[in-house]
């Protein structure tokens, strides 16, 4: 059993700083000329006095340019995801460890003392201190103009605001009267909760600090409506579209949008070093080419990206593999982490009363699940490489139990038929389709967002299986937004979409996906709405299992120990497995990851996930390095001949 929840962070912090008995530092070759000219301080002055020593799988040499491809200018935010520099971060084993923070002391799950690294600097060389936290909390998050809807959710423990103290320049303390288990996971997310911002830069745009006339001029110049809009536009720590905004990330944006190519250069003040005393990141420069998302697999296959997974799909695999030797890269297959690649969502809150009654009958959902031949889907569509079973946590998760995945998942048409007869759906029409209680034929229309053929391929296979038990299935592709709006309004009988977003939870992550808390949950949009809008809209959950799930979620938030949380998780997963709220198909479908043969330290087999995982972020992109045996501007050479 894992005991390393975040309650032990203080210990981890101590370990990190003990390791930080740092080796003598070496100057980065790329920055040496600037240091010589006196434009940059030497490396000893640039890294914090207690840097974070990261041990890479393979020691690298600094330099080189990493090329990425992205689908739009908005994707500059992904550098913040890939860079994955957070106050605390997940390790590849999904435990939390301090990163920007030197350590965090946690008492009772409600008092969090963050110790910063003395001498830590922003990418423009200005010190990073408790003032940056104070400015954010007092002047940004608590300012009604800048944050009209108040503090972020994760800073409220059952509606209670935190008490925030700044004992000295390198210490920040957040405390609540009750435990706040959301706080640290929010800080470690791929889209993190930033509880700091570069105060010295942003104060120029804040009405409280800036000269009113100068500020008014800046607002007009930027075409904004008022100073709050300007401040929010420039404070783009996640959006990452402001090249002037200082950052703590390994690479800093240099190109001003709009552009079709974004350049990110190394942050000379980055706080991590390798055991040999070389400042990270190894790679000098990252360039992000912008192309239409649909053409990215083709461009990747032409060797125009050194590291690519986004916008590549499993069905691109053969094409990419074919060009592998020609363009000097390797295609790796990583696991993805959704609880299920695709799952069917019977809408328990559908408007139609007959359907509502039927879908709420657990026997019906079980029958649908039993009538689905997952093995066939796996063989036909996923080359047999996926994991068959229900929509639940993946085997890599510490909460995994085989019985959750196997429950009602074995193909058995006889059992399904028996269950359907038992419900009373005995009458059939001439086509052999069963009839609903009001005489309509049992035709299920499965709606989807119409974005990929994968969904329709799956449904095509399921349709054949279901016809054998007297159920007709129709596919209705629409458009993403229309699809969502119909589901939220209760028009949809059943939909198909990705399963649980996070199939790799630990007990310390909130089990939000398992209880009806948002209308995005297609199995019960209206119950979710009810919770989300604080009972203004939607409907209250009125079946015992859903009420139980909500109660368990509350228990989780009140829990103090790891073991309690673990039990809550197990119980909730058990309810899902037994009730078959969603009908999972297959999981663990692989994500092709194209890695240039010059690029080192990228794991051969990894997990490609958003949260936790931050795509590549969790695997320490700052330790990736490029061997210099091939020319950098490879794209201009005749690719067809180069490798032969």
């Amino acid at each position, binding site marked *: 059993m894992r005991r390393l929840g975040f309650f032990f962070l203080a210990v981890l912090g101590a370990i990190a700083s003990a390791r930080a008995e740092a080796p003598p530092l070496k100057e980065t070759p790329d920055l040496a000329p600037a240091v010589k000219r006196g434009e940059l301080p030497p490396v000893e002055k640039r890294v914090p006095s207690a840097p974070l020593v990261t041990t890479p799988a393979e020691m690298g040499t600094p330099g080189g340019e990493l090329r990425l491809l992205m689908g739009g200018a908005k994707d500059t935010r992904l550098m913040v995801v890939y860079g994955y520099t957070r106050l605390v971060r997940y390790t590849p084993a999904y435990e939390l460890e301090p990163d920007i923070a030197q350590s965090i002391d946690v008492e009772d799950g409600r008092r969090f003392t963050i110790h910063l690294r003395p001498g830590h600097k922003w990418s423009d060389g200005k010190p990073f201190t408790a003032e940056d936290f104070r400015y954010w909390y007092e002047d940004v998050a608590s300012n009604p103009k800048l944050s*009209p809807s108040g503090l972020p959710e994760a800073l409220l423990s059952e509606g209670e605001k935190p008490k925030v103290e700044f004992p000295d320049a390198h210490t920040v303390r957040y405390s609540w009267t009750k435990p706040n288990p959301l706080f640290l996971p929010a800080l470690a997310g791929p889209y993190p909760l930033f509880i700091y911002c570069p105060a010295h830069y942003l104060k120029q745009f804040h009405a409280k600090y800036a000269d009113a006339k100068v500020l008014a001029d800046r607002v007009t110049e930027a*075409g904004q409506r008022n100073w709050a809009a300007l401040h*929010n536009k420039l404070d783009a720590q996640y959006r990452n579209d402001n090249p002037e905004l200082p950052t703590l990330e390994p690479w800093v944006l240099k190109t001003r*949008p*709009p*552009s079709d190519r974004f350049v990110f250069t190394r942050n000379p003040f980055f706080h991590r070093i390798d055991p040999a005393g070389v400042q990270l990141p190894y790679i000098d420069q990252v360039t992000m*080419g912008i*192309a239409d998302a649909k*053409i990215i697999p083709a461009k990747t296959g032409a060797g125009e990206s050194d590291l690519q997974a986004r916008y590549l799909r499993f069905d691109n695999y053969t094409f990419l593999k074919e060009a592998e030797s020609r363009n000097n890269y390797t295609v790796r297959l990583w696991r993805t982490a959704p609880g299920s690649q695709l799952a069917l969502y019977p809408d328990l809150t559908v408007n139609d009363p007959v359907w509502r009654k039927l879908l709420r009958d657990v026997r019906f959902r079980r029958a649908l699940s039993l009538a689905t031949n997952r093995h066939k889907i796996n063989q036909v569509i996923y080359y047999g490489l996926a994991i068959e079973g229900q929509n639940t946590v993946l085997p890599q998760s510490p909460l995994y139990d085989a019985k959750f995945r196997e429950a009602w998942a074995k193909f058995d048409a006889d059992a399904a038929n028996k269950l359907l007869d038992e419900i009373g759906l005995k009458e059939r029409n001439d086509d052999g389709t069963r009839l609903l209680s009001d005489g309509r034929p049992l035709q299920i229309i499965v709606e989807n967002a119409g974005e990929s053929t994968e969904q329709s391929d799956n449904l095509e296979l399921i349709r054949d299986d279901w016809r054998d038990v007297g159920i007709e299935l129709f596919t209705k592709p629409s458009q993403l937004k229309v699809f969502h709006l119909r589901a939220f309004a209760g028009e949809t009988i059943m939909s198909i979409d990705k399963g649980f977003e996070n199939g790799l939870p630990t007990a310390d992550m909130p089990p939000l996906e398992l209880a009806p808390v948002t209308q995005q949950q297609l199995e019960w949009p209206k119950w979710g709405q009810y919770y989300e809008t604080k009972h203004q809209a939607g409907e209250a959950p009125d079946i015992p299992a859903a009420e139980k799930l909500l109660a368990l979620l509350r228990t989780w938030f009140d829990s103090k120990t790891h073991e309690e949380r673990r039990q809550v998780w197990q119980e909730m997963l058990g309810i899902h497995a037994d009730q078959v709220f969603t009908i999972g198909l297959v999981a663990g479908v692989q994500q092709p990851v194209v890695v240039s043969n010059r690029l080192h330290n990228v794991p051969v087999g990894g997990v490609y996930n958003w949260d936790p995982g931050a795509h590549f972020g969790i695997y320490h992109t700052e330790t990736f390095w490029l061997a210099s045996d091939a020319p950098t501007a490879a794209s201009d050479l*005749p690719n067809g001949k180069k490798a032969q």
Partner: protein
Amino acid sequence: MFGYIVHRLLIMIPTLIVISIVIFTIIQLPPGDYFSTYVAELQSQGEAVDLQKIAFLKAQYGFDKPVWQQYLYWVVGLLHGDMGYSFEYNLPVRDIVGDKLLLTFVVSFATVVFTYLVAFPIGIYSATHQYSWSDHTLTFLGFLGLATPNFLLALVLLYIANVYFGISIGGLMDPRYLDEPWSWGKVVSVLQHLWIPVVVIGLAGTAGMIRRLRANLLDELHKQYVVTARAKGLPPFRALMKYPLRMALNPFISDIGSLLPHIISGAAVVSVVMSLPTTGPMLLDALRSQDMYLAGSFLMFLAFLSVIGVFLSDLALAALDPRIRLRGGVTR
């Protein structure tokens, strides 16, 4: 003549007003707005969304106001030269459009030149050698050009260009030149990349133009004045160029009206397939994500160019062909 021009200019105003209302209505027609599209898109990628920030932006940009107020706000801005604000790019619209216009212009202009250079000689040749073996061959090629879907051709050419000539896929220049100042190498790189889009976009137009030129010219060639000119001993080339060809040109001049907006908007579908940095894909994205000020202002700009273009081509026709009378234009 002067009265005619003033009349035409004045009639543009109600035309543009109606166009602006239609544009705005159509953009607003699909359910939801830019932010709901944005949220749905992020969630489909499995990413988190900061709903508080979205609420802030919505209020900031007046999404809570009635539609007619949003419309007035937009139109009044347009009259002041303010094209509004793009949510997608988080920048004023003029900053986004400006960069793309030049390259769009280059591509479109090259396409037009390519079309004319190829279509005219072939069209004239086909007409003068009607039903000959060479005419049949060229006609066959022309139909082939008309019938090939150009996005398919784009894909095939891209693949060939990449595998055999090592030209990077998509885009108008090699990635490393993208944010560099103009240099000789950059110009060469653009020229290397330019031929595919030019051929692809121009192909259907070229084929169409060959057919039209051939048909028009054939009508003229059998008229009596041509026979007379020949009989009087005018050299065949002059007898062709002096009158029949000029007569056959009228449809092309009236085409200028639609050419002007076309040069600016580029061929959207081909540009998307080839990921060209032109305005076509930008407009398409803006429409899809309901980035209403970007889409609206750009469409308005195109509408304005069409109106001007039609006006100019009418004037040019009147100037070039004495048979066209102004009176006819007014009563039409």
